[in-house]
């Protein structure tokens, strides 16, 4: 039998054929797996990150198959494991943060707490997500600067995602005790109803929230489409102030009545 002929040491032609076929099969499996991963994650992961992930999967499968075939070539994997283990410890210490960021990045890509274009806040950084990479996340802050945050920090921090179809903002306006709060409520409601981007549903809420030291505090809660909410917020406060002025409703200064005893 040709297959039992020894090539070197105890390795026969059959062993070499087995290793070759296994490696070929692993290449085919790795190819199929990467195609499948590419198809299923195409819309979910950035192209660059997807390529890195595919390479990791591709070479990981081949390496795994190769390690299984090592005994057929007369190589004891445990000796490799020992050497690899020592090397792994050295590399592990050296690349602790890289690995941490990489794994966090993988979880962020899978969990998807944010998408590119979302408005977010992580610790003291607020802005628009520009990119979610394997090792870091890039945020364009509202003042235009670009902030790179390591994925490990993103993963371990409290992340607030403001992106939604509609967004609420609140005002708190104090009116004089001598003014009619119900009339003020109607005046404010008219201003809100006149504004196209103050959503009809969820309807705005206007109510007396508290009786302050110098004024009756009115709370106003407004929902607006996310695309325009800041413009609406900017425009409305002054319109409300003007409407209250026009209707003779005073927004008082803080005041303190001092009574002197004779």
């Amino acid at each position, binding site marked *: 039998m040709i297959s039992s002929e020894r090539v070197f040491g105890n390795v026969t032609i059959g062993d070499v054929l087995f290793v070759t076929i296994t490696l070929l099969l692993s290449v085919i499996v790795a190819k199929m797996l990467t195609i499948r991963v590419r198809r299923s994650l195409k819309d979910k992961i950035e192209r660059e990150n997807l390529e890195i992930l595919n390479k990791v999967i591709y070479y990981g499968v081949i390496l795994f198959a190769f390690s299984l075939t090592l005994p057929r070539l007369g190589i004891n994997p445990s000796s490799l494991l020992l050497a690899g283990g020592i090397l792994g410890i050295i590399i592990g210490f050296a690349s602790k943060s890289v690995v941490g960021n990489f794994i966090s990045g993988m979880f962020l890509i899978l969990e998807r707490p944010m998408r590119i274009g979302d408005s977010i806040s992580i610790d003291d950084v607020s802005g628009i997500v520009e990119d979610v990479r394997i090792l870091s996340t890039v945020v364009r802050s509202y003042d235009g600067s670009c902030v790179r945050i390591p994925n490990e920090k993103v993963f371990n921090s409290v992340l607030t995602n403001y992106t*939604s*179809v*509609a967004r609420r903002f609140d005002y708190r306006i104090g009116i004089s005790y001598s003014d009619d709060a119900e009339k003020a409520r109607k005046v404010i409601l008219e201003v809100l*109803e006149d504004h*196209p*981007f103050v*959503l*009809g*549903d*969820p309807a705005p809420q206007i109510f007396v929230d508290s009786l302050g030291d110098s004024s009756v505090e009115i709370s106003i809660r407004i*929902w607006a*489409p996310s*695309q*325009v909410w800041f413009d609406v917020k900017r425009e409305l406060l002054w319109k409300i102030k003007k409407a209250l002025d026009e209707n003779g409703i005073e927004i008082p200064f803080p005041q303190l009545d001092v009574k002197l005893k004779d």
Partner: protein
Amino acid sequence: MYGCYDIPLNLTEAGIEIKVERDQTGKTTYGRSGILGEVSKTIVSRENPKVVICPVEPVNLPKRITRYLMIELDKEVLLGPKDEGTIDTGFPVEIGVFIAKKDKYSLIDVFSFTKQKFSLYGGVRDGIICRYWRSGPNLNKDKLVEGRLRLQVKNDTSDWIEIRKVVLDASEMKIVYSEDEVYSEAEMKILSRKVGEVRFRKPANGGTESIKLLKEMVVTAHQSKFIMEDGFK
């Protein structure tokens, strides 16, 4: 007001004045003034273009932030199990002014005599913003203000269904106009108590077809129907 006009054009109606003039150098100026504010534009064209004024999909003002239209019916409609019927309701009219050369149109102005209001359909996270319109008990007869929407409703369920709101994708809206009215048609199929398919269809009524403004928003894999998944009330 609706129609196709030659330049020069001087049109005064409903408190607004539209003026389109062409000077000897071939420069055309468009101007609108009156109760809805003033707009002025310069158009450069070698040939003498035409001006088309027609109703357009009512999702452009004050700024295009959505393509969905929500119509709240004045009275709730109760539809019997496996039943079907027709509801006549209204939709807000927005008027587009186009400059036209052969079969190429370009929008130069859009205005409306209606009050614009928006509303949320569904949840804050995954709902949609819609141009909101509440149709009164009687349709506004002014064709510059409100158009007539004939809605064919079909209940595929074995329950009584109450309908108060209809959400439509305006990029599929087909509007026709005539001397008497602005008109559009849609159909709604109720699939369950909270889910329904709504789509515009080609109006059976005769009339001049409006120019479609939202054509460019229609993408290859675009769904022609809108699925209402958050109920009809």
